[in-house]
């Protein structure tokens, strides 16, 4: 009892914090998320594979066209190279980024399934929101880029 100091600073309480995000999430949400997870992985993997194939196709086309242009083909004009680059690189990005975000969503679902509280649910839903937002933005960008490209390729030569 000699070590007891009545004037010592009180230790902060380390008990459970009353926070709604730490509470268990509604159990009805577990089955649909559990069943979504494998399909998210499938879509993510196929999307990444497609992006890799598009990248490979673009590189091989650039190599062939570069070789052709280097030998004086197309009057040594690099425009076809630029067109290939502008058509395929946005497509590759538009496939790769949502696939990575979908992978992250699937991982967050897995974490939620291991610890089904509101905080993990919110983290999973945040990943889902990011996926949809980026998908929308990339679709918008893709439409814009292809419209400009179509105008450059088809409309500009007519004038």
């Amino acid at each position: 009892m000699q070590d007891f100091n009545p004037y010592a600073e009180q230790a902060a309480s380390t008990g459970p914090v009353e926070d709604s995000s730490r509470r268990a999430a509604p159990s009805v949400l577990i089955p649909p998320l559990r069943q979504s997870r494998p399909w998210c992985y499938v879509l993510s993997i196929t999307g990444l594979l497609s992006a890799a194939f598009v990248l490979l196709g673009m590189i091989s086309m650039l190599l062939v066209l570069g070789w052709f242009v280097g030998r004086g083909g197309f009057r040594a004009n690099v425009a076809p190279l630029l067109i290939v680059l502008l058509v395929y690189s946005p497509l590759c990005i538009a496939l790769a980024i949502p696939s990575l975000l979908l992978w992250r969503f699937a991982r967050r679902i897995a974490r939620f399934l291991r610890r089904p509280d509101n905080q993990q649910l919110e983290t999973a839903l945040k990943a889902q929101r990011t996926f949809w937002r980026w998908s929308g933005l990339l679709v918008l960008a893709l439409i814009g880029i292809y419209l400009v490209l179509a105008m450059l390729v088809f409309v500009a030569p007519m004038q």
Partner: protein
Amino acid sequence: MDDLPAPADANPYAAPEVEETILAPVADDGPLITPQTVLLMRQTAPWVFFLSVVGFLFTGLFGVGMLMNFLLGALVFRFNLGDMIGMAITVTVFLAAGAVSTLLLRYGLRVLRFLSRRTAAELCAALQVQRTLSWVAALGYLLVLGLLTTLIVVQARTPPIID
């Protein structure tokens, strides 16, 4: 607080108004849905609707292109295996795009219903539509990839036709 002047038209006997913020959970028939969950779903909905509209536009344009292609292609169609697989790919893309767009619209509507009721059951219904959406999209994509691979194999094995 006592030295604040009361507004002239204020009724001191009126019942106090409940400040109902749009994010406050109103569910009383189930487990708690946090305001953050509601906010996240609210921010998701517009993008889902946007992608659905783009999907329907793509499906419509693709459908018109497909019909024209079939009508014009009928003149030179040989009805060999390669042509049939090509047709199957086109029809699969058209059907998958239509189904995904419809499911996106349904998902968006379910999210809106959840935002108005804010119950766990409504969120569950929305996530169920999302689950259906993910497997339909995955199966459609796998089917198209499978058909494309088959087409490449068939075309590689078919000797070129010289008229």
